[in-house]
């Protein structure tokens, strides 16, 4: 293939190591270099659509060395990560002026992007763990970046829970190595197909679900998210909610469940149960919030529930041996919702950051009537809210429609009913946001609120245009066939992953 795969990891790493040398005086030069790096990654990700390949690092052949694998699922997630990180980096060029150590922020941000790219591309399970840790450590530091009271408490809670999750994942990797004797995901898959599951591998699977589920903020393990996402600076909330919980949590879970271990009925139903629990609990807890970012954080938990429900439904249908077309429709809905949510949730958090910079507060009761003062923020926030609620023709409508269709086609009518009910709850919470922030009376102290211009505006408008256009991803057959279908095929052909990798 044209672009060597390690470029996705090496470019942000090299830039991240170079940036702290700039110091306080080279702040603007550092911002320009960082933006060039993320835009270069976006260009590379777009040119990798539809390709696939295996890259052996250091020319060591596969069972001996580490390899990077690019297949449909990886290229879909790389595209999502690059788009969101390019937009957020543009936004943070303007927003982070109020913090003092900007080159360090940019360096940590690029380390997080390098870690996420590494997780998505890795073909070796321990390499996945190392990149997971790189991205997680960078995000723990970024959440507490402002060093105020709330940020430190949120960051400590997030760090402790995230480290415990990573230790569970490492323990599970040790168990897998002890039972199969290799660390390469394709070879592990072959070994498990030959020897079957035993108690050690079953326990390892449970530990993987707990560890990755905590990173993805599924409901019994969600305790860190409502504190971490509001307290972080707005661009970091956008990255965390938009791509980090998806690439570290949902992607790793899907890869391990579908491609390495193989689906089983118990795991499928467990994923469906976790998904439904997250959807319902997240939606109910979000309606009563008065802090705008905390409301959006709970809404993130709810939307990740949709994604896991779609993937779990597909897993359960595959394990039951039902019509494979039903399973691939469910997985298509889940993956499309993942990509959609990355775009509109990060746009929502960026607009909340713009609101916070203009008004100085995050409480809904203190804002009101800002529709005339902040026109661009109002438009982009409305576009994003319409997407997340599911109003046609915005992107969120199509993914929810396909998920409901998949549930009805598989004859689980109660799941379809729950999906529609939670969508109504999402409508209620975003109507609340719109009414309290933009409509109503303008309070005295906000009479001079100014619209934020420059790069912040460009980033928000870019993401808003994507929200409108993303519906075409599933409606236009050629786009669907080149971007979404390869990802779905990777998951539905679960155990053939090992043949594909060993054959390349």
């Amino acid at each position: 293939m044209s672009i060597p795969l390690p470029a996705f990891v090496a470019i942000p790493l090299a830039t991240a190591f170079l940036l702290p040398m700039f110091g306080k005086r080279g702040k603007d030069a550092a911002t320009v270099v960082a933006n060039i790096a993320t835009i270069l990654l976006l260009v590379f990700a777009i040119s990798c659509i539809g390709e696939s390949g295996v890259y052996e690092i250091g020319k060591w052949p596969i069972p001996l060395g580490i390899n990077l694998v690019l297949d449909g699922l990886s290229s879909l997630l790389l595209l999502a990560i690059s788009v969101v990180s390019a937009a957020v980096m543009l936004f943070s060029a303007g927003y982070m002026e109020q913090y003092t150590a900007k080159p360090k922020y940019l360096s940590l941000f690029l380390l997080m992007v390098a870690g996420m790219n590494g997780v998505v591309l890795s073909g070796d399970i321990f390499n996945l763990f190392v990149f997971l840790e790189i991205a997680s450590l960078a995000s723990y530091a970024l959440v507490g970046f402002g060093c105020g009271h709330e940020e430190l408490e949120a960051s400590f809670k997030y760090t402790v829970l995230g480290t415990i999750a990573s230790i569970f994942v490492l323990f599970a990797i040790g168990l897998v190595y002890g039972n199969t004797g290799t660390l390469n995901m394709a070879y592990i898959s072959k070994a498990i197909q030959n020897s079957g599951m035993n108690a050690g591998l079953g326990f390892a699977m449970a530990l993987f679900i707990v560890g990755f589920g905590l990173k993805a903020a599924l409901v019994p393990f969600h305790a860190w998210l409502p504190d971490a996402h509001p307290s972080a600076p707005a661009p970091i909330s956008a990255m965390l909610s938009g791509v980090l919980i998806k690439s570290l949590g949902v992607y790793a879970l899907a890869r391990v469940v579908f491609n390495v271990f193989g689906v089983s009925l118990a795991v499928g139903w467990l994923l469906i149960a976790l998904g439904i629990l997250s959807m319902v609990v997240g939606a109910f807890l979000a309606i009563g919030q008065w802090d705008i970012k905390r409301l959006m954080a709970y809404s993130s938990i709810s939307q990740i529930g949709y994604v896991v429900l779609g993937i779990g439904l597909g897993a359960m249908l595959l394990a039951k041996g039902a019509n494979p077309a039903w399973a691939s429709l469910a997985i298509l809905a889940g993956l499309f919702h993942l990509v959609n949510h990355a775009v509109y949730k990060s746009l929502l958090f960026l607009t909340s950051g713009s609101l916070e910079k203009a008004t100085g507060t995050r409480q809904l009761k203190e804002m009101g009537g800002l529709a005339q003062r902040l026109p661009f923020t109002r438009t982009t926030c409305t576009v994003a809210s319409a997407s997340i609620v599911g109003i046609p023709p915005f992107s969120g409508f199509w993914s929810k429609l396909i998920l409901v269709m998949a549930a009805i086609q598989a004859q689980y009518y109660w799941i379809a009913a729950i999906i529609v009910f939670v969508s109504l709850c999402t409508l209620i919470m975003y109507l609340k946001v719109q009414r309290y922030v933009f409509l109503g009376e303008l309070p005295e102290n906000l009479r001079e609120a100014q619209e934020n211009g420059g790069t912040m505006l460009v980033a928000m408008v870019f993401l808003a245009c994507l929200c409108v256009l993303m519906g075409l991803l599933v409606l236009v057959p050629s786009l669907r066939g080149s971007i979404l279908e390869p990802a779905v095929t990777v998951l539905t052909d679960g155990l053939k992953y090992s043949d594909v990798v060993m054959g390349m």
Partner: protein
Amino acid sequence: MLYALCFLLFMIGLYCAVVKKNMVKIVVGILIMEYAVNLFLVMLGYRHGGIAPIIDKSHLESQAALNNFVSSSVDPLPQALVLTAIVISLGSLALMISLCIRTYEKYGTFDITEIRRLRG
């Protein structure tokens, strides 16, 4: 049998990280968990009566000597995993301790029941 003791150490660390109220004790609990997992990984590679996996001139003389070496040395791969895991835990430990110190400067206490401004 040794694996059961290793798992017991892991459970002790987990209990400490979940139940205790002092921030530094929570960090120590996480450290104990990490030691337990590193111990488990090293024990995976052990072989009874094994020799260290370092090659010298006598092993390279003939194919039989090399085969003998391969079948009697301990597995070096888990040792590489443990080195990486130790470095990662050092990084996260440094981050957690610096968060503890900064929180102490702001609140004046290490007790997590009193550091609770975020609710709901």
